[in-house]
């Protein structure tokens, strides 16, 4: 039980994280992995748990750009989708082994992120959001037109991975538990990578740009190049989420490229809290569980989700996890 004194955030001008908080920061990756191991046994279904993994990775990757670099992209669905499409096409049309297809998806998505980033990071502020949205919509329409590759509006299919071979053992990939833990390894890898990036000097540089772009430039940072690198890394992580989703569903819907999908990523990130490492993951979890549960109650679940989002922007801009950390963890 928390004491009343701790329930209210202390007005503090000093940043000296308490013992719990600094432990949580130091061991954030192992702690996250433990939480992920338990996840499928706490959620209504394994399929939902895998979706949480996927969107958790996507949101954490997205947050590298949004929360840590301070750039609001409305086009990240393009990278998630690119990862998924490339993986699916590689397996279904070229018979590439699944692990190589994952690698191709991640690299391809990263490359697309580099291209879109190179164009969009030249703009600032609200223009940046608009440009990312427009370029991502362009990707959507290209995928719609290139139907011989992507399946167009029908979606990409025909690449179900039934079993995978790990260290000489055949694993039934249709089994939900197996699938979860294999994909969890990818998620853990992604979390570890993002954590290292955030801990690195580059992590400090993007925070500086978020805090004060002009000052960062005056300090000698090549702001455009740093933003582009952040954009590319963020898009690459999102592409990994996309490849995971391709393996999970054995289907890539065209809708996965639409700007509504980008909006969903933003909502998840904000809901969980863009100011913290694990916040976006929590956001993905809460968003998906909410959707799952509310959509069983009422077909008008969107009004609930929308209202909650509005209230969060107004009153809890730190998000669920961010608020929780600020209030209860020292």
């Amino acid at each position: 039980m928390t004491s009343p004194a701790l329930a209210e955030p202390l007005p503090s001008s000093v940043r000296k994280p308490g013992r719990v908080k600094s432990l949580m920061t130091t061991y954030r990756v192992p702690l996250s992995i433990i939480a992920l191991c338990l996840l499928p046994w706490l959620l209504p279904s394994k399929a939902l748990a895998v979706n949480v993994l996927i969107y958790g990775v996507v949101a954490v990757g997205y947050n590298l750009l949004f929360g840590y670099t301070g750039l609001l992209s409305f086009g990240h669905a393009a990278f998630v989708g690119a990862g998924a499409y490339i993986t699916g096409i590689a397996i279904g049309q070229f018979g590439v082994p699944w692990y190589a297809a994952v690698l191709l998806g991640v690299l391809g998505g990263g490359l697309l992120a580099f291209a879109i980033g190179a164009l969009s990071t030249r703009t600032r502020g609200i223009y940046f959001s608009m440009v990312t949205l427009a370029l991502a919509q362009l990707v959507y329409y290209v995928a719609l037109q290139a139907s011989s590759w992507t399946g167009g509006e029908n979606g990409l299919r025909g690449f179900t991975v039934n079993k995978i071979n790990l260290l000489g053992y055949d694993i039934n990939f249709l089994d939900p538990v197996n699938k979860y833990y294999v994909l969890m390894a990818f998620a853990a890898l992604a979390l570890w990578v993002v954590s290292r990036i955030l801990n690195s000097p580059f992590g400090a540089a993007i925070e500086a740009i978020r805090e004060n772009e002009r000052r960062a430039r005056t300090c000698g940072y090549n702001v455009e190049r740093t933003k582009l690198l952040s954009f590319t890394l963020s898009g690459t992580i999102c592409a990994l989420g996309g490849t995971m989703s391709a393996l999970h569903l054995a289907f890539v819907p065209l809708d996965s490229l639409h700007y509504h999908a980008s909006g969903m990523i933003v909502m998840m990130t904000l809901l969980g809290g863009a100011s913290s490492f694990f916040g976006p993951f929590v956001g993905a979890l809460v968003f998906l569980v909410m959707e799952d549960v509310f959509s069983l109650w009422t077909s008008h679940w969107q009004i609930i989700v929308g209202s909650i989002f509005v209230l969060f922007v107004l009153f809890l801009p730190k998000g669920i996890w961010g608020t929780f950390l600020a209030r209860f963890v020292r």
Partner: protein
Amino acid sequence: MDTELILMQLFSGVALGAILVLTALGLSIIFGMLGVVNFAHGALFMVGAYAGLWVASLTGSFWWGLLVAPVMIGLFGMLIEYFLIRPLYGRSIDDPLLLTFGLSYVLVEGVRIVFGTDGIPFPTPSALTGVLDLGVGFFPIYRIFVVGVVFVVVLLLWLGLEKTRFGLIVRAGARDPTMMRVLGVDISKVWLLVFGLGVGLASLGGVLSGPMRSVNPEMGSLVLAEAFVVTVIGGLGSLLGSIIAGLAVGIVISMTALFAPEMATIVMFALMALVLLIRPQGLFGKLA
């Protein structure tokens, strides 16, 4: 291709452009004055169409719907500004964008609850049905009427912004809000009115679109994309830019529809990407 068809296509393009201008104006004005990207623009457009229909069915006249609904929804917009947007001034510029994004979900679902998910019929007012012979082809009278309305609205806006004291305050306020406060102008009142005006324009667009497009809860989603493209090409916040960009996009779509019709949507986004690469701030925009 004969000349008549090309002329006709050009005319269709201008008419479509006028409609695009109408859909973009509200978005452009709100951004220009408040620096807020209203993601609920499309949803408010849709709500406007439903409100127009509702008023028209109560009064039995399309014209009442056309007049009353934009005022009604404009007032509703002021409530949004007062209760939802205002607390966000001074925070990140992204916050109003995110809030209105969430709001659009609420509005769309709200309309689904009240009016159903399928959409409802919105017949063309009987005085404006039929087609007009332009010499090179036939064009719906109603569309010509809409072009006329857009012209009048743009003219009124221009007069209002350039020739009145209120317009002066609005333009000055957009440039330097702190200065206005120093001069004793209650800038928050101006913002309230401008937001209401922008939302009112969005819903006017909705009412006018009712007889042309099918009225359904999702109709705003496409409009939002179109309005974004037009305002971004024109330069966010530039009224003149929106008008020129709207017409240009209309003509480009129309010409594409003649030669490569399946590309008529993609060309809009391609044009936008192109403009942004050459001039990131849009044709008439100022750098942020």
